[in-house]
């Protein structure tokens, strides 16, 4: 019957729909930023830093007070406390995170996530 372009265009549309669907399902990488006290005058700050400890089993604590059980991924208590601290003292205070050597990276990211959502600008590790 000769060369027909209509079926070829239909095939193109089916392919396009397939790739549009599969691309929508893919997870895109995002990122969380922090800064190290390196090379820019790592002098001591006059304000007391906020220190968050992460234990090996995933418990989050600050000043020996528990702020997150290992199963708590959203860390509501921690977020509220950080929001309060930011509102009271401004966001120039450095927040220092101290994970234990066997703390899982996922837990550390949970804390970074909570800090970023609470508005902490000055975040670093120790």
């Amino acid at each position, binding site marked *: 019957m*000769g*060369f027909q372009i209509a079926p070829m265009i239909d095939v193109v549309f089916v392919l396009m729909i397939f790739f549009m669907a599969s691309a929508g*399902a893919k*997870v*895109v*990488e*995002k*990122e*969380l*930023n*922090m*800064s*190290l*006290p*390196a*090379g*820019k005058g790592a002098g001591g700050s006059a304000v007391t830093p906020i220190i968050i400890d*992460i234990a090996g089993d995933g418990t989050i604590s600050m000043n020996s007070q528990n702020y997150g059980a290992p199963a708590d991924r959203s860390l509501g208590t921690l977020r509220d406390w950080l929001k309060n601290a930011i509102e009271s003292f401004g966001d120039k205070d450095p927040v220092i995170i101290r*994970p*234990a*050597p*066997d*703390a*899982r*990276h*996922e837990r*550390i*990211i*949970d804390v*970074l*996530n*909570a800090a*970023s*959502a609470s508005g902490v600008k000055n975040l670093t*590790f120790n």
Partner: protein
Amino acid sequence: MSGSAHGRGGGKKAETRLPPEEDPEFQIAPMIDILLVLLVFFMSISSTEVLQTNENVRLPVAKDSKEKKKLAAGEGQLLINVLWNSNTNSGAIEIDGQPAFERADQLGPILVTKLAATPEFRVLVRADKEVRYEYLRTILSAAGANGVSNVTFSVVDKEESK
């Protein structure tokens, strides 16, 4: 030619009837040209960063993460993959596709050269969610010791749907 010489006056009817329609012949050469143009386009669009990401790294989930920052001119980035082997409970650091190593000692010289090339430099760490902090600490201390202050962790913002 004789037709066009006197065709303007009144001879429009006979000269301008279209010949019976034929299907145009199927020409494959233009289609291959389009294919090559598309190929060149996608090759130029893809960046080297896609090649550097290690697919075995399962990134942790962080719902409040920010969009990936595009690198401007004059800014450099070193992408470090930190793999995790659940069987041996050990981690491995991989840079630029080179074979993985455990401690970040080799990281120092690489950072120094990259910092000399681009002062605005950052380190992008793609660590598996199970990696223990001791592996990350070597990377962070190497970065701090060499003057890189901008360290960024890669995350995903929703769970992968299987």
